[in-house]
């Protein structure tokens, strides 16, 4: 499940690992044959730290209990290897000491049938296979750059289209029903979210000097970034609750009071963001709070996923009501399903469901790349998608007159009584 929430940060993981240190890449002929001691102090520090942890583990772990030959636990200079049965190839993730080592790749070590670790034929020393760690780095770097620029372009386009939509919503004074008010707030939270994401991507991610200096401002930026992420998803939840109340619960649909929606959308996300800031400062106070290797991120992502799940159930319920209402009005089946599907598809980007339905990143490299591209498009172009569907494509909605708005309000009010149900035109 960690990969799920970190899909958003895959790019940032790659960039913080690879791009900032590119200018200081360590050069050596074959990392797998040369001795493992290096001069660079930061890298050495990490390695010494891993060495300490390894020997502690070797000291404290119970002795090997299974029968048969096995290779003894060992420290190979970079990674710790446990007792392994003879004849088995064991693997673990590559270390992150060097800029061109990709920690998502696997390093392996073979324990041969005689219970000794594999020795490299050239040097006759025990040898672990780190070749995969830096063999695809240049392609991955290229792809990381593509994804990075895609993200920036996506957020910029989202901001532009959302601002245009907001301008349209504010300009046409007749568009002042409550649903549109919620849309305005949702769009505004999308705009702020995109702005903070762009600020983070441009100012912090490619700037290792800033990260090293670790000023308070970059932690404050990260705090607001988490807050806006929460706002984004909680406003989507507000839209879901509003629609659910309107369609499923309301029979005599009076005007709802929006104060609670404002509280949930703008006020409540402060709670997980603050708790995350406090926990991060206390327990995992890394530079600029950039690391995604911590479970403390779930303090923000947990409520976001809970909000998405609740939204998902509201959506299912709304679709169920829509479909049953269709059936009651005796329309042709194909028409019915088409309309239901259209309603669902319009609601999906609104409610951010894609994060619930597509959680797992495939292990296969090509499939993983395709997954990354799709996820990045869905994440960073979401604002553009929402603005397009709710403003630009929904022509009658955005240029509606008072009459149209009255028709919209009337329809949703009497959805249970009118024979021809056209509530989805208002979406």
């Amino acid at each position, binding site marked *: 499940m960690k990969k799920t929430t970190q899909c958003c940060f895959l790019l940032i993981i790659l960039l913080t690992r690879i791009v900032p240190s590119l200018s200081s890449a360590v050069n050596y002929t074959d990392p797998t044959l040369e001795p493992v001691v290096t001069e660079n102090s930061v890298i050495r520090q990490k390695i010494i730290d891993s060495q300490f942890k390894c*020997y502690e583990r070797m*000291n404290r772990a119970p002795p090997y209990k299974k029968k048969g030959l096995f290779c003894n636990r060992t420290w190979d200079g970079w990674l710790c290897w446990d007792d392994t049965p003879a004849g088995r190839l064991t693997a673990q993730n590559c270390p992150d000491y060097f800029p061109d080592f990709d920690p998502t790749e696997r390093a392996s070590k073979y324990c041969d049938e005689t219970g000794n670790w594999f020795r490299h034929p050239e040097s006759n020393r025990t040898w672990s296979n780190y070749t995969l760690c830096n063999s695809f780095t240049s392609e991955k770097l290229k792809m990381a750059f593509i994804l990075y620029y895609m993200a920036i372009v996506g957020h910029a386009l989202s901001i532009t289209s959302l601002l245009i939509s907001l301008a349209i919503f504010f300009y046409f004074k007749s568009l002042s029903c409550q649903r549109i008010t919620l849309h305005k707030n949702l769009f505004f939270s999308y705009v702020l979210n995109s702005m903070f994401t762009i600020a983070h991507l441009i100012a912090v991610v490619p700037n290792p000097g800033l990260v090293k200096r670790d000023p308070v401002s970059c932690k404050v930026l990260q705090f607001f970034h988490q807050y806006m992420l929460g706002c984004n998803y909680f406003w989507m939840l507000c839209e879901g609750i509003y629609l659910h*109340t309107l369609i499923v619960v309301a029979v005599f649909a009076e005007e*709802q009071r929006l104060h609670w929606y404002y509280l*949930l959308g703008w006020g409540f996300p402060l709670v997980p963001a603050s708790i995350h800031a406090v926990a991060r400062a206390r327990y*995992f106070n890394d530079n600029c709070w950039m690391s995604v290797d911590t479970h403390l991120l779930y303090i923000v992502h947990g409520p976001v996923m*809970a909000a998405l799940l609740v939204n998902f159930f509201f959506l299912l319920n709304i679709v169920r009501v829509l479909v049953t209402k269709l059936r009651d009005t005796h329309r042709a089946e194909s028409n019915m399903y088409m309309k239901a599907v259209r309603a669902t598809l319009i609601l999906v980007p609104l409610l951010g469901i894609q994060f619930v339905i597509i959680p797992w990143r495939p292990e296969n490299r090509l499939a993983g790349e395709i997954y990354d591209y799709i996820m990045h498009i869905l994440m960073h172009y979401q604002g553009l998608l929402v603005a397009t569907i709710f403003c630009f494509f929904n022509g009658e909605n955005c240029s509606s007159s008072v009459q149209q708005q009255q028709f919209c309000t009337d329809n949703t009010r009497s959805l249970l009584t009118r024979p021809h149900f056209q509530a989805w035109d208002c979406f």
Partner: protein
Amino acid sequence: MIPGRSASGAATRWCCGTQPALWGIPCCLAQHFIAATACQEADYGAMIRHYCLKEFQHSMEGIGQRLWCDWDETVGTYGELTNCTALIAEKLDCYWPNRLVDEFFVAVHRQYFRNCSPSGRALHDPPNGVLCPFIVLPVLVTLLMTALVVWRSKRSEGIV
């Protein structure tokens, strides 16, 4: 970057003047033990115990037993111990690390770091007892808040 293993005949180039004596090991003495062609494990084991361990013990006693678990205090000494074993391996034409190094360090850890937390110096998550409440609480509050908003929006409709 320490260069690769030297050929046996070139072992004599490791004289005192060319090696930085970071830890004060009388490196000239090491010349007496330079192996001819292969790694003499017994010699290596003896050397690291004789030279590296002595220096390490001296430093650790200087730091004081109370601070042995303080990684910030001991990291320098630990690093020097590692360097020392690596350099002697270089001189004896052994590859580093090896089985003897493993045994050596396990013994060092058993003696000096037995009572320390095994996590080292890197940042790590708090224990589960602290982490879980931090995560579960916002989720529960979220669900409560959602229920509250749904309930309040129902009530304002006049629907009970």
